[in-house]
């Protein structure tokens, strides 16, 4: 029972990353239909920026996290403008290629600039906590709480602010939004900024727990794709829920069934579910 609780806790913690990364990805893929395969690399870049700010400029942990989000937001806007916008209206595979190009570019640029050895950010909150038979650290609790707060803030932003509602309008009806005078390019930019900032936030929160390496986002982005397709393209609730579910599936499946094959569960589920429902679990029938 203790082990079960421990694995559930691990799963929620893992799921927090997945949810935040998937949420960012669902904004650009579900709403703008950009298959941003480099999303995991933006996540990685976010972690490096945080590392850089803390180790070189002695930023405090939270200051570094927020700065990293801002910087990645700008990077996201640049990516949208120069890598994806020129390809609007071309066959969908072209954006895929562009994304792969960006992925290779980012991963190797980071390796050149910061080297390939794994980096570490010192634990800001290293103390061990005992809770309901679970042993963990403060940092892990902070990650879980911070992720929930950020997800709620994003929801409020989308539902309650003008900027947010324009994004939602574009998501629901791109042409309609254009007709009522919404600047779709601006919305695209902003969506990318939010998406990247979210990736940076996830990466920065995790940074003291995990290792930072140039390849840290490679598998994560694939999992994020799995989550948003299963959760329904463009559905934020789906992405959040899917993220936590995948986290739990992995920690329970990995802990109780097979650690070596734990990723096969997620990817296999995607192939099977799409085979049964080609437009995703919550996809709609089109006329």
């Amino acid at each position, binding site marked *: 029972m203790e082990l079960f609780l421990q694995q559930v806790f691990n799963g929620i913690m893992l799921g927090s990353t997945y949810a935040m990364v998937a949420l960012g990805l669902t904004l650009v893929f579900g709403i703008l239909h950009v298959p941003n395969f480099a999303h995991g690399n933006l996540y990685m870049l976010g972690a490096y920026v945080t590392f850089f700010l803390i180790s070189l400029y002695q930023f405090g942990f939270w200051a570094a996290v927020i700065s990293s989000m801002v910087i990645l937001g700008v990077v996201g806007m640049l990516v949208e403008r120069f890598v994806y916008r020129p390809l609007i209206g071309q066959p969908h595979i072209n954006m895929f290629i562009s994304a792969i190009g960006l992925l290779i570019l980012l991963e190797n640029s980071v*390796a050149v600039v910061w080297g*390939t050895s*794994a980096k*570490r950010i010192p634990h800001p909150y290293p103390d*061990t906590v005992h809770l309901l038979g679970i*042993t963990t650290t403060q940092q892990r609790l902070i990650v879980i709480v911070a992720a929930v707060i950020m997800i709620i803030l994003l929801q409020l932003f989308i539902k309650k602010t003008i900027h947010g509602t324009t994004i939602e309008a574009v998501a629901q009806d791109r042409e309609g939004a254009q007709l009522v005078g919404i600047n779709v390019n601006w919305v695209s930019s902003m969506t990318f900024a939010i998406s990247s900032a979210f990736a940076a936030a996830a990466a920065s929160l995790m940074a003291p727990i995990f290792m930072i390496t140039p390849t840290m986002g490679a598998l994560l982005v694939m999992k994020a794709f799995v989550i948003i397709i299963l959760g329904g393209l463009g559905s934020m609730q789906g992405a959040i829920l899917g993220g936590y579910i995948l986290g739990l599936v992995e920690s329970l499946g990995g*802990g109780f069934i097979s*650690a*070596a094959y734990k990723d096969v569960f997620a990817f296999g589920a995607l192939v099977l579910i799409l085979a049964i429902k080609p437009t995703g679990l919550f996809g709609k029938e089109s006329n």
Partner: protein
Amino acid sequence: MKNVLKLGTFALLITGLLMFAAACGSTDQEPKAPEQEQADDAKAVDKVEKEPIEVVIGFTGPLSGPAAQYGKDNVNGIEYGIEHINSNGGITIDGQKYTFRLEAMDDQADPTQTINNARRMRDQLDVPAIFNPVFTSIAPLMDINSEPDNEFLMMAYSSTPAILHLDNDLTVRIPPSFLIYVEAFADIAWNEGWRNGAMLVTLGGYGDEWREAFREVWEHKGGKIVADQPANYYTETDYSTQLSAALATNPDFLLVGGPSEPTALVVEQARDLGYKGPILLVDQAKQDHVAKILGGTDLMHGVMGVPATADVGTEFAQEFKKGYEEKYGVINTWEAVWEYTAIHALAAAMEEAGSVDDPKAIREAFPKVFPLTGEEYPAEMFSMGPRGAIHGFGGVQRIDDNGEYTTPLNYVWWTDSQDVLDEIKGVSQVGQIELMKIDE
């Protein structure tokens, strides 16, 4: 018109990149064209003091991608060795001085690129020997290193026992087989009275063999493996899942390891989960590197692993450690130590063979260059086995309950002869040496 403009821009960009490439390339020392080399030779004959000839040594391995740091540790070791050889005047054969240069090429551990790189270095730089630190790349290299008139010496850095099953006359295997550590760990653990072991070793060719070998030896002794939760140390970032599962079995000890950085993370996460027992580190992880990442040995009480090189204890080893860290900004790993010593052995073998370009002769001369001991080298090498394995120590070291390093145990593993052991005790600079017999 617009298309022509686009094409122009593209062409310009590509040209620019290529020029940039060429410029970058020229900052390295350009390999000499054969004609020029001959001209140099001709000139050299005229002079009384001959100009030294530069011999290029090849390396191909992962310098980008997940295993990049591992590749770099190897390159650093070879490069550092070459630097020392050259600053001591290189080697001399028949009055002709030779110096060395390392050409290190990246193959991302992709065997296709490994072969391409090897071909290139053989073809354009005429390298007599190629270093490679990845087993899956070494095997295809052994496929092409014996082509007539195109031979090269395979300097294989791999502790995988499987490598000796590949028949090849031109191979030198640098590090000892990891079976030493398997045996030593199992012995020590058994004598401590531990019976239940949990494993959380890296996935991958090396890790898979390690786990299997340890399981075999341990179960043979009568011990139990209560949990086997491998994780990919190159791609995973959180090991809580595997650790929770492994620790739930209440093991007497934990066997973990892969590259040092993630191994440190595993150790930390294990302690975070409340585990206080002993942890054994597989030989790829380096104890003092792990300690440095964790900011000291506080979390490492009761850890057992491969000893830090500094504990060879000689003045040279200390100097080496310091110099290396200054030059490369990272701690020297086992790879660096072995490769440093191996390149010296190679240079000595060339001198012994009287040739810098005949791989067969160099390989035949190899056994004659030993021993290399702690007075001048960070690793000690005593002889060479029949299948090209260099005989050096495999050692084990423990950190006690106060976080202090204990004196390492070193194993003579290639023989069970007490005479050889005594002989080695006579020349070796290290402290405790034990006898152990492992198949070569």
